[in-house]
């Protein structure tokens, strides 16, 4: 890979201090997922679990990078996942997010993305949908580093 290659697909390995240690105090993290499906193409934006909900729109890679994703960000929220780099027909995504805001009357939208530049597209897509919606909701964004740290968390 050349030094000027795509940061989103650059090959890297991270050293962890002790990969055999338990993952947390109890070694097991309970899932906070409360719905199916998850993928933004597959979800029905009018599903009951989106009505008035706090929704977290998560880039595909985030939940793998972020160790405490379930407890810190998914708990109590409804979810959809997407990849702004690889997914096709993203105009449907804009329509679904608009439907969340205007029809399902979601309470908040949190967009979680990786630090790689291509991931910004998901936040841009959410903002575009919000600007087209009649209703307004608070939008928060969270940027996760490749090593699984929170780089930035703020209201858009």
């Amino acid at each position: 890979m050349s030094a000027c290659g795509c940061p989103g697909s650059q090959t890297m390995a991270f050293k962890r201090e002790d990969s055999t240690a338990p993952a947390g105090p109890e070694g097991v993290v309970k899932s906070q997922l409360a719905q199916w499906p998850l993928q933004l193409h597959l979800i029905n934006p009018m599903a009951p679990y989106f009505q008035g909900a706090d929704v977290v729109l998560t880039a595909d890679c985030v939940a793998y990078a972020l160790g405490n994703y379930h407890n810190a960000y998914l708990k109590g929220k409804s979810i959809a996942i997407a990849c702004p780099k690889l997914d096709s027909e993203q105009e449907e995504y804009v329509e679904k997010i608009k439907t969340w805001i205007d029809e399902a009357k979601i309470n908040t939208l949190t967009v979680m993305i990786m630090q790689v530049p291509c991931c910004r597209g998901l936040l841009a897509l959410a903002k575009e949908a919000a600007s087209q919606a009649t209703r307004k909701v608070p939008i928060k964004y969270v940027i996760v580093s490749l090593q699984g740290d929170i780089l930035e968390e703020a209201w858009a």
Partner: protein
Amino acid sequence: MTANLKKKPETMTDVIGLYIKDVIDAYPAVGDILAKAEIGCVTCSVGTCLIKDVVSIHNLTETQEQALFANIAAVIFPGQTPALPKTERKTPTSGTQKLSPPLQALVNEHTNIKRVLAQLPALIERLQKGLNPETRQTVAEVIDFIRQYADRFHHAKEEDILFKYFDAGSDILTVMMNEHEIGRHHVRTALAALEQGNAALIIEHLTAYGALLKEHIRKEDEILYPWMNRELTDSQVGQLFSKFNVVDEQFGAKANTYLGMIDKLEKG
């Protein structure tokens, strides 16, 4: 040692569990230390906050907090090096934070209120020359703005909605609500004075209101709202946003009318 501080604290943990006014009364140098840390408790009229609550609400870094406690310890325990406690903190670090949309809306409303407060000295100068019909009209418009926009619109969002998400008995909310009431007293009295044609009384109460609200807004923008911002969950932020929107819709076009009034006031 004052009567309020019945015995000298033995540890710094004891100290941070004391009422801040009692400590400042007994050790005035502590007031100077807090003031240097931009914790303006010396001027507070209530003073029922515990030191640990006051410090934690200011979101100091651990380093800043430990330095502050060390300076206080040097005053209360001179020549000794007592163990320094740590306050509980929801977020581990300080620094600027972007307010959530509903709290930012309140800050934006403060900006409009401060524009009117900035015009009070000029209005008071006019009042000192006499209460002619034109000045009477301006005073009436300013009082109407304060009662409708600052109080019924803005303060109602705080008291009827935002503050409900927090402990109503907490020290900081007690101080804020108390200041709202004092402000209302000044405005009621200024309005009665206007009806009586008593320019001196209008000057007295508009001056007091301006000073009170300027400091009140500073406390909210710099301390209260950032603290609330850290405490509110995302879900609560969404609820606040929706509830504030309802209030905005109810107030409707009147907001623009008052913004026009501010423009007119600034142009003189």
